[in-house]
């Protein structure tokens, strides 16, 4: 028994009738409105939330004639592309400063290397961090959304690339001053940094394992056998907690104010994201653990 519906699509802003489908089966086909599917936002209410790709026409609260509203989301770009671009930049830019490529510092320093061993260590840590991120983007992360608005790539790259250049300029500067407390400070910083890198990676793996390939189901993350995931007991978004820790370590290691500033700005942004995620967890799951804070145990 086939249930046929009539479907009309209206523009969300002008309410013009864009399209009328006489006999639609269970699933609404993604039709061409001059805009590719990733740009199409179809919703039941002009100001409401978008319907998901998986939503089935039959199960939606509509009558025999379903009215949908269409909104153009603007040019889209895939998350993977954005991540790869925004992470490859800092990796390469930092190395340019590290190798003292011409036109950055005074000509007599071109292609020289710093005499401070902490500068070499910092380069390795910074590069490791972004290589890790690139590999995670390719092999670990499972993205809920395929795409984001195109203008985001300009915004994000300006942020990442700009800060990378600003930090790298001072760390690799011929007049760089190494940390006050010398080896002790650097050792502690490196320990914190590595600990948090491993922690951050562990969380990414744990989150990936929550979701079988191709699915978009959402579950509450819980601590696993890996001790680095035990932080889930206290925090909703430990990946951000560890990320903050990594950058605090890097700040301590380089004793560079621009790095501290970058850490602060990143922390503010991650806190906003963590609070949002925490709120949506609470909304979605009745039995969400009450001990958890968004990003900092008991504090934030």
């Amino acid at each position, binding site marked *: 028994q086939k249930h046929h519906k009539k479907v009309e699509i209206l523009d969300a802003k002008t309410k013009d009738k864009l399209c009328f489908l006489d006999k639609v089966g269970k699933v609404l086909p993604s039709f061409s409105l001059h805009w590719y599917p990733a740009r199409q936002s179809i919703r039941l209410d002009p100001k409401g939330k978008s319907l998901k790709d998986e939503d089935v026409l039959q199960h939606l609260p509509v009558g025999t004639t379903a009215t949908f509203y269409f909104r153009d989301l603007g040019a889209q770009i895939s998350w993977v592309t954005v991540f790869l671009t925004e992470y490859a930049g800092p990796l390469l830019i930092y190395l340019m400063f590290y190798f003292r490529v011409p036109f950055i510092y005074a000509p007599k320093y071109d292609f020289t290397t710093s005499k401070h061993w902490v500068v070499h260590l910092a380069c390795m840590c910074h590069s490791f961090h972004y290589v890790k991120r690139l590999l995670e983007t390719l092999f670990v992360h499972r993205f809920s959304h395929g795409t984001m608005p195109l203008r985001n790539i300009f915004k994000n790259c300006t942020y990442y690339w700009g800060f990378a250049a600003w930090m790298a300029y*001072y*760390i690799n500067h011929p*007049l*760089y*001053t190494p940390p006050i407390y010398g080896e002790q400070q650097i050792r502690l910083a490196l320990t914190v940094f590595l600990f948090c890198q491993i922690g951050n990676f562990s969380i990414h793996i744990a989150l990936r394992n929550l979701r079988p390939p191709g699915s978009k189901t959402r579950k509450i993350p819980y601590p696993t056998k890996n001790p680095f995931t035990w932080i889930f007991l206290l925090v909703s978004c430990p990946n951000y907690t560890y990320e903050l820790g990594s950058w605090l370590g890097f700040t301590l290691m*380089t004793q*560079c*104010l*621009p790095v501290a500033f970058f850490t602060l700005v990143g922390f503010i942004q991650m806190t906003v994201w963590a609070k949002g995620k925490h709120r949506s967890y609470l909304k979605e799951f009745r039995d969400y653990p009450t001990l958890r804070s968004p990003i900092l145990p008991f504090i934030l």
Partner: protein
Amino acid sequence: MASGEEDGTVEEKETNNKKRTKGTIATAWLTFYNIAMTAGWLVLAVAMVRYYLQKGTHKGLYRNIAKTLKFFQTFALLEVGHCAIGIVRTSVIVTGVQVCSRIFMVWFVTNSIRQIQNEESVILFVVVWTITEITRYSFYTFNLLNHLPYFIKWARYNMFIVMYPLGVIGELLTIHASLPYVRRSGMYSLRLPNKYNVSFDYYYFLIIVMLSYIPLFPQLYFHMLRQRRRVLHGEIVVEKDE
């Protein structure tokens, strides 16, 4: 009547009373604030006119009014607070940017670089600011008292068309004039090497500030133009959807 219902209405009345009291206090404070600011900028205007009439020149005028200008312009920081606690319905960021740019001009350019204090451009922007602020604060005052004379409303939404660009010119010329002195003295700058591994060059910072007028000024100007169209001609402006 069941006692439960009675309690409900009593509670409601109490909350409404609290809201009304808060609203009255806010209005009273804002009225006082706007009257005080109108008065302050009027005093400044009078002082400038008197100085010019007595001395016949603008040289030394800035030094004469510096204290009053610094006081009332700095006091305007309170307006950011008004937006933050919600008694004024404007964006905190917009107000913050506007007040900060004024504070910057007064404290970090004109006040700290003595050599440019007799420039004509300084008089230009101070005069523009004075006219603008007197108009603005009296507009707010009359609004709060619910008696808005049309000419004040007219002034608020028309004078800016000329005042804004003139003010920008005055500010930019002043910053430009200060550049050689900043460069020579190396003021507000931090050089390498230092233990924070950072440097700051006030000279280049000022140049960046000047360049930032290019994207920022048109945005603010067209925002005011849109508001003007809406208020004076009742036109419905369709805002860009995000």
